[in-house]
């Protein structure tokens, strides 16, 4: 099987990919498997944005400890995204407010946006994957 970087890319075309994350980690697998797509996708050098909305904001909350539930704490991986050139992370403002959270509670730098701005960002995308 060819490695991602060996596969024939569409003549070097760069598309805007948005990953919409709306679910909390650990309770379901979507957060983890979404992150896996982002990491593999990084090899394709596309223009990537991550959005955390609704319970998805919990994916990037600081100080996660999973010892008692016997699951792997994968939150440090969000800090490694920068090394994969994934730097555009957005959080929906109301999702933070509804959950009593602020930017200070998050383990990565994000841009907090309102629904209108998020709508604008979504309009700009070529591909939106929803998890």
């Amino acid at each position, binding site marked *: 099987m060819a490695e991602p970087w060996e596969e024939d890319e569409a003549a070097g075309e760069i*598309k805007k990919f948005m990953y919409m994350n709306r679910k909390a980690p650990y309770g379901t697998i979507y957060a983890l498997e979404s992150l896996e*797509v982002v990491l*593999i996708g990084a090899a*394709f050098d596309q223009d990537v944005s991550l959005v955390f909305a609704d319970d998805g904001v919990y994916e990037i909350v600081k100080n996660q400890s999973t010892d008692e539930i016997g699951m792997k704490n994968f939150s440090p991986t969000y800090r490694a995204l920068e090394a994969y050139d994934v730097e555009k992370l957005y959080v929906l403002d109301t999702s933070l407010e509804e959950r009593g959270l602020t930017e200070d509670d998050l383990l990565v730098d994000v841009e907090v946006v309102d629904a209108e701005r998020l709508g604008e960002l979504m309009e700009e995308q070529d591909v939106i994957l929803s998890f």
Partner: protein
Amino acid sequence: MKYGIMVSEGPYTHEAADTAYNFTKAVLEKGHEVFRVFFYHDGMNVGTRLSVPPQDDRNITAKWIELAEQYDLDLVVCVAAAQRRGLLDDDEAKRHGKDASNIAPKFRISGLGQLIEAGIQSERLVVFGD
């Protein structure tokens, strides 16, 4: 138009596999192209050879196989999701020392890069999930 299709939920538990099928069939009948159908998360369970659903209801896997045969569709199950949940082809079974493989015909196991490629190559990637 060239479409990519993503199925993110398992058969029967969610309607996603049905709706994706109906959409894919409609799109093909209208003369559009479907670059790939990628099964992720529990959606990979559509690719099992071993499902025996009740006779008086639809057989989701069989419908996808038939559609794939008719239109030469590329049905791809994500290897990471499949390994986690127990769907293997012969190579995977051999590689991981398992005593059986259970992938359905017309489905193939491959990496997440296939999903990204579908996003790049398609004009629209449509996600069917929860």
